[in-house]
């Protein structure tokens, strides 16, 4: 089974993480342990999503099994959560920003701006869709007559 402690954050927990991610980017006060949990988790989520996008756009191939699914699912999760087709530029920028922050490194204004824009859009999307426990998978379409 999946062991990633940050897998599929959802509902109130996801909103809290995104809000705290905004706090980190804007240097608002945040407990050190919580800060670490948030930046490491967001770096992983965005990093996986970015890999998932790369696999789809450059691979022209389908992958079998869970390792591919981790990245692919994160990308799919992000798209469902944000409600539009994503391109990799923004996700990759956010990944880079949170990876640097997880190593207590400085980020540039440009990196901060890009990551903040993505988190703000995610928050707006969460506000719009309400506190669903898990973003819904696409509806199953039965083809049986």
């Amino acid at each position, binding site marked *: 089974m999946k062991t990633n402690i940050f897998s599929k*954050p*959802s509902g109130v927990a996801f909103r809290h993480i995104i809000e705290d991610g905004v706090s980190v980017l804007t240097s608002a006060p945040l407990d050190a342990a919580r800060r670490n949990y948030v930046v490491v988790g967001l770096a992983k989520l965005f990093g996986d999503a970015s890999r998932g996008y790369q696999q789809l*756009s450059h691979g022209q191939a389908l*992958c079998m099994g869970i390792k591919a699914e981790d990245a692919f699912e994160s990308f799919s999760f992000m798209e469902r959560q944000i409600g539009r087709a994503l391109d990799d530029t923004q996700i990759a920028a956010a990944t880079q920003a949170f990876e640097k922050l997880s190593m207590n490194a400085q980020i540039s204004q440009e990196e901060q701006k890009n990551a903040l824009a993505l988190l703000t859009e995610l928050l707006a999307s969460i506000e719009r869709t309400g506190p669903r426990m898990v973003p819904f998978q*696409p509806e*199953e*379409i039965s083809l049986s007559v």
Partner: protein
Amino acid sequence: MDRLHAQTYARAQESFPGDHAGPRKWLALITGLLDTAAAYIAESQQPGKSAAETLSLVNDASQIAHLAYQLLNLMGGAGLDELPYCIVAPLQRWFDDLGIDNSTFFRAELVINYELRPFDQGTFKGIRNPTQSLSLAINEITWPLLRVTVPSKAFGIIPHFAIVAHELGHALAEKIVWDQTKFASFSTDLVNRISSRLNMSPLTPSVLKKGQEVFLSWTAELTADAFCFFIAGPAAFFSLSELLAIVGGDGLTQTHPAAALRRQTLFDRMSMGSTSFSDLFYKHTGQVLSTEFVSSTIKAPPPADQLFVQVVQNTKDSELAAVLTEMNEALPSTISAIYEHVESFLKANYPSSIYTPGQFDADLNTHLQALLSAIPPIESGITLKERKATTFTCIINVGWCALLTKLSDLRVKIEGPDPLNTKKLECLHSLLLKSVELSEVRRTWETV
């Protein structure tokens, strides 16, 4: 929130089937959420809070309470009224013996539905400022927590429970290391087929995303079917075929491959080997197995061009239609690789979990005629020292053979006419339920 607290407390006082710990862990999680929501409310009433801060805390408390309410609803059917008491322990043993140590709880639903639903700690762990009770409840659970749904008592005929092994397969599939090279030619073939169908090259990320989603879903189902077959043997073929027939239609959806393909795959496996399961079924029952043996109503999907048009009409999505149509055409070439991976995984890690034709032969030799004389299969072995409690797999396989071929030979007293053997079916079910219960008692003796 107080009412939810009271309801959660009341549920925690109940007994659960098999004295299983899973529901209590789930209830502790709900209590932790409610405690956290209450702490938010208390904090909102602290002096010096701005109106915005107060509103935010109350809003959060409301959403967490709503989540707690959802979780309480999600454990519906976990009580003694819905789930046979004795069935939980052997099902849990299947999980334990196959190294699935996730926290689990079982629940029943009044529909013919088997489901394994994982819950990630991400839904709870990220909540800001959790109370100690919530943190403790999260830490007490081995994540992802698994909720296993089976049909409730009315639909829950014991032999059908083989399908739980399919759900178990979903959990085990994540442990397999897939050799991507075994699927490379399939992937190339499929991409070419979809390109040709859509007249699009290279495929856009949108098409590939749909293809990847369907591919992962379909192969996950076939992988779970394979686990079910290796663990449960012929009971897997009978149970899955019948379930697919009851569900109806061709079974082909975004999440599931065609029912006919799944059934044919299982039937082919039944007939493999020098002495196959099918041979042994004939030896003990005198009946020749066929693909449609228990599922004559399963329909095959239409030919590719017709299927494509049908999906476009239903979904208005030609990309999805191309993916489903071509995946349905190409998928059979991957099936042997999937079964090889599953078999290798089980042989390397849990060899004793594989139900072999030899075991099937021995189980039918020992228990089939006895069961027809109303002696439930409780233990096997000739001498006292050799005797062991029968396994759940043995019970469901012997049960299926009796159910499908020998029901009219069951020597039990029936009151009144029984032209369709429905009363005998009830008697058989009771005998099998008793087998599960008494073999569990026998197992307990062995450990004393």
